[in-house]
């Protein structure tokens, strides 16, 4: 690999641009895709590798190519700059999520409480509209406050977010589902919300709950049987 190619790869990653580093085996000829100079077959295979988020070796036009898919990091939107969020953020970052914490209450959403994390202090509905969750985004609401959680969940349900979780007891969650149903979400759509949030570790402390949520994010991302059922079609 030339230093120039490594620099181009680093630049694409910094710009959160999905790219594929294609290496011909065994001689090491390389392209950073998409690149029209590489030909249609290689570019198509690269697009598929990014869509599946899978790196591997493929036979293309009579040669073996290793396609290394570099997708931008998965995103996690955390609504509620609460104590559990403080515990969740480092775990989620460590397993590869780019985290944004949303909370209009500036006393909670401070740089001191959340060092090195992207913080938004607009209202969750505005923040969610700006962040536009996609199929590589997870949304977790932690405020316990319907004024803040509900608008975020409403928008998450209208998105392709691959994971939606809401903190709260079963009873709180049932009441929440009632309110969201009144906003027009079907039962099937509401089943996308994991509540109570997190893998059942019998977690007690904030770090334990943060760990259980981060663990569930990994399970959802990797398609583990421990993950909640895959999202159904988008909400009405």
């Amino acid at each position, binding site marked *: *690999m*030339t*230093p120039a190619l*490594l*620099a181009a*790869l*680093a630049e694409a*990653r910094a710009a959160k641009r999905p790219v594929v580093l294609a*290496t011909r*085996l*065994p*001689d*090491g000829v390389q392209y950073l895709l998409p690149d029209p100079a590489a030909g249609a077959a290689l570019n198509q295979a690269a697009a598929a590798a990014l869509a599946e988020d*899978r*790196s*591997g*070796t493929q036979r293309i036009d009579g040669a073996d190519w*290793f396609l*290394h*898919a*570099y997708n931008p*990091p998965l995103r996690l939107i955390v609504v509620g700059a609460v104590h559990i969020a403080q515990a969740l953020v480092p775990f989620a*970052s*460590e397993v*590869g*999520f*780019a985290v944004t914490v949303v909370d209009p209450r500036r006393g909670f959403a401070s740089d001191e409480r959340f060092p090195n994390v992207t913080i938004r202090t607009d209202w969750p509905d505005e923040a969610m509209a700006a962040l536009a969750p996609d199929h590589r985004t997870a949304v977790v609401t932690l405020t316990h406050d319907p004024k803040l959680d509900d608008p975020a969940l409403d928008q998450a349900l209208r998105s392709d977010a691959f994971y939606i979780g809401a903190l709260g007891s079963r009873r709180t969650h049932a009441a929440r589902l009632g309110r969201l149903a009144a906003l027009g979400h079907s039962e099937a759509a509401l089943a996308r919300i994991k509540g109570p949030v997190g893998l059942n570790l019998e977690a007690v402390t904030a770090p334990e709950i943060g760990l259980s949520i981060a663990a569930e994010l990994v399970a959802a991302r990797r398609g583990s049987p421990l993950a909640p059922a895959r999202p159904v079609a988008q909400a009405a």
Partner: protein
Amino acid sequence: MSQDFEDVLTLAAQWRAAGEQVAIATVTETWGSSPRPAGSQMAVTASGRMAGSVSGGCIEGAVADAARQTMQTGAPQLLDFGVSNERAWEVGLACGGKVKVFVEPLA
């Protein structure tokens, strides 16, 4: 933030910028129960620095040897590690899996 490939390549670039000779090893294919997926990477310098991994630790030594060779010759290598390989540098994987590792100079 700390996806391992990113750290490895960032370190590799830093090492080279500091004047080190660097080679990069990448898992390109796996069969059976190999511990690290395709795309896992390891960077090695001629001075002996190492970062990242291409297995659970069973073949890193052999890969580092191949990397030093690649830094000397400038030629990339495609290494096969597995139970049935008879080559001189071959090291079996305790888990019974097989991996292919591509080693290239950063130059």
